[in-house]
């Protein structure tokens, strides 16, 4: 339990730092950024405390908002993702997911991939809708959501594979 808290705190700080120092500066094609900090919410233990996940996601989003001058956009998207996460688990792994030992950071299976896909798409859609906040940019929002989602998913999978916990 204690090592779990430690592990998650380290992940929180590392992903926040990586997002601000590296991934916010990629500006692919001039405007596309990946947001792999959502990995914190995806990799949070399935049976962990739900309220602390909500609070941590909010804090993570708010800190990123502070660095990007974007009000509360990331905080809103992250909190929503943290809240609907159990539903996505059910969608991807079946109804009895709580009794299985699901680990997201492991070999890529269709279940894990669909979970990451649904979560990242939801997060990015909320993020870009709130960030733009105008309906006149509808196609722009959709385009950015699609491409940023692809970008983020590729990066997430790479990161998961790079930092796979050593096998006992």
């Amino acid at each position, binding site marked *: 339990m204690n090592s779990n808290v430690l592990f998650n705190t380290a992940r929180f700080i590392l992903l926040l730092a990586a997002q*601000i120092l590296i991934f916010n500066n990629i500006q692919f094609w*001039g405007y596309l950024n990946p947001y792999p900090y959502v990995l914190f919410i995806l990799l949070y233990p399935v049976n962990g405390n739900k*309220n602390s996940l909500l*609070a941590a996601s909010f804090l993570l989003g708010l800190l990123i908002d*502070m*660095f990007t001058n974007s*009000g*509360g956009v990331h905080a*809103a998207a992250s909190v929503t993702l943290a809240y609907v996460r159990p539903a996505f688990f059910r969608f991807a792994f079946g109804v009895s997911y709580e009794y299985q030992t699901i680990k997201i950071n492991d070999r890529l299976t269709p279940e894990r991939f669909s979970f990451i896909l649904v979560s990242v798409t939801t997060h990015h859609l909320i993020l870009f809708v*709130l960030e733009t906040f105008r309906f006149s940019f509808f196609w722009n929002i959709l385009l950015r959501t699609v491409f940023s989602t692809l970008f983020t998913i590729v990066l997430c999978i790479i990161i998961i594979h790079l930092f796979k916990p050593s096998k006992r």
Partner: protein
Amino acid sequence: MQQILNFILKNSHKLLFLLLLIIALSLTIQAHSYHKSKVISSANFLAGGVYEQMNAVSEYFSLKERNQELAIENARLKSLLFNSADTAALKLPDTIKGVKKVNVILSKVIHNSFNVPENYLTLNSGSKQGVKSDMGVINDLGIVGIVEKVSPNYATVQSILNIKSKINAKFKKSDHFGTLIWNGKNTGYAQLIDVPRLAQIKKGDTIVTGADSKIFPENIGIGTIYKIYIDDQTNYYTLDVKLFNDMTSLGHVYIIKTKDREEILQIEQETAQPNEQ
């Protein structure tokens, strides 16, 4: 009472979610709706400090271009200096009784953003250096933005690449003026709206800041006309302006401190108020 407590405990997850979502949404709406009401911004000790350290590393990669820019600026200023006809008889237009109307504070962009509709920059000087909100920010090529929020050591700037930005601008050759906005699409181009159809314009004309602006001094470069749209319904032109500045690559900037701003604002406010009898 017992039941209320039970309800709260049972639904703590849902209630916490709603609370946090409401906070986040209200911050978002506030950031989108009002001018200068950003509760959290990168003009603080933590974000400013991190960006300053990042900039200390990354500025080495563009030293060559920055030097080139400064050399060009120096050459331009030198040519102005050598070509002024008679320094003894020279009358500076914006000087009254030896009091300068404009002060310039040197600063550096430590964080730049240009990939969202509402872009902000972070500068490494703040209220300790005399920066206040609503000061203009320019560089050697043209205008950059307007100071939004200030902390002791850092300041955030509303870039001209921000769909909330509205800056008074005019044509260099005639004094017809319009409003410079950005449509959120291309980082190289801004839009000039509300230009009267009487104005004689053609592609390539230079746009500069107008005299109506209390933030920028007159005649600071903005860009050249790139495309002209004629709207049949109204008597106004809409123009695409190709910016002089490459907003995606900014280094040193100058913060403009106009001394008359408060006086002008005050007298305009007094005029606008109805006369008391």
